[in-house]
C-alpha cells in the first residue's frame, strides 16, 4: 500500500507537473506504456478542468491524492472552487462552459474511457472532487 498527497496552485504550468507526479507515483505498479498514457491523460483532463473552471481569474489550490492498493491506483483531484451546477450536464460528451476558448468538452468522456471507475462530487460554491480508479494488469 502506498499513498501521496500534493497541493499546487491552479496555474496551467502545473498541468504537466501533475502528470509527471502521477507517472512517478504509479511506476511501482509497472504499468504498460498504454496504461501510463491513459492515466496521465485522465489526470491531465481533471487537473485542467480545475485550472480553467474552479477559481475563475484568481488562483486557488488544487489537491491531488494517490493511493495504491494491490494492483489498483485511486486518484482524487479536488478543489475548493465554484463547483459544478449540473453534474449530469457537465458530463455530457462535448458539453463545455468555455466554447470560446476552443474547449472540446471531451474531458469527462476521456476520463471515463481511460479509467475503470469515475466518481464526480461537487457542490456549487464549495468545490469539486473527482475520484478515478484504474487497475494495472500484471
Amino acid at each position, binding site marked *: 500500500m502506498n499513498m501521496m498527497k500534493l497541493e499546487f496552485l491552479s496555474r496551467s504550468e502545473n498541468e*504537466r507537473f501533475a502528470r509527471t507526479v502521477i507517472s512517478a507515483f504509479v511506476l511501482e505498479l509497472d504499468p504498460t506504456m*498504454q496504461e501510463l498514457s491513459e492515466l496521465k491523460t485522465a489526470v491531465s483532463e481533471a487537473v*485542467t478542468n480545475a485550472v480553467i473552471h474552479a477559481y475563475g481569474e484568481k488562483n486557488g489550490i488544487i489537491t491531488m491524492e494517490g493511493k495504491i492498493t494491490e494492483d489498483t491506483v485511486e486518484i482524487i483531484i479536488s478543489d475548493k472552487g465554484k463547483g459544478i451546477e449540473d453534474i449530469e450536464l457537465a458530463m455530457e460528451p462535448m458539453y463545455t462552459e468555455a466554447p470560446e476558448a476552443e*474547449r472540446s468538452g*471531451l*474531458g469527462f468522456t*476521456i476520463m471515463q474511457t481511460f479509467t475503470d471507475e469515475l466518481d464526480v462530487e461537487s457542490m456549487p460554491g464549495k468545490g469539486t472532487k473527482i475520484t478515478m480508479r484504474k487497475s494495472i494488469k500484471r
Partner: protein
Amino acid sequence: MDTKIIKQKRTLLISPQCDIDHHSVAKIRTETDRLISSTGVINIAFDFSGVGFMDSSGIGMIMGRYRKVKALGGRVYIVNARPEIMRLIGLSGLADIVTILDTIGDLENEHDEA
C-alpha cells in the same frame, strides 16, 4: 516550435516540440493563426514527431484550426503522431475530418484541392 511553409506556399508545416496541453496550446494557436494570416497558406500540417503527450486541449486547438482553414478551402494534416495520440484523435472523432499521414514524404506527395 518549428514552422515551415511548404507545397508552393500553400501549406504551413508546424512541428511542436512539447506536450500539447491547455498550457501550451495558447502559444501554438496564436502563432499558427498569425502565420495563416500573414503568409496566405490554406493548409496546415502538424508534425507530431516531437510531441510526447496530447490531451483534449490539443483536440480543441486542432478543431479550431480546422474551422479556420476549411473556410479558406484548405485541409488539416497530421503526421507522425504516436499510437497514444492517434488513439485520442480517433476517440474524439477528429480522425474523420483531418487527414492522417504516416510521413512527411506522404505530405509532399499530397495533391492540394481548391
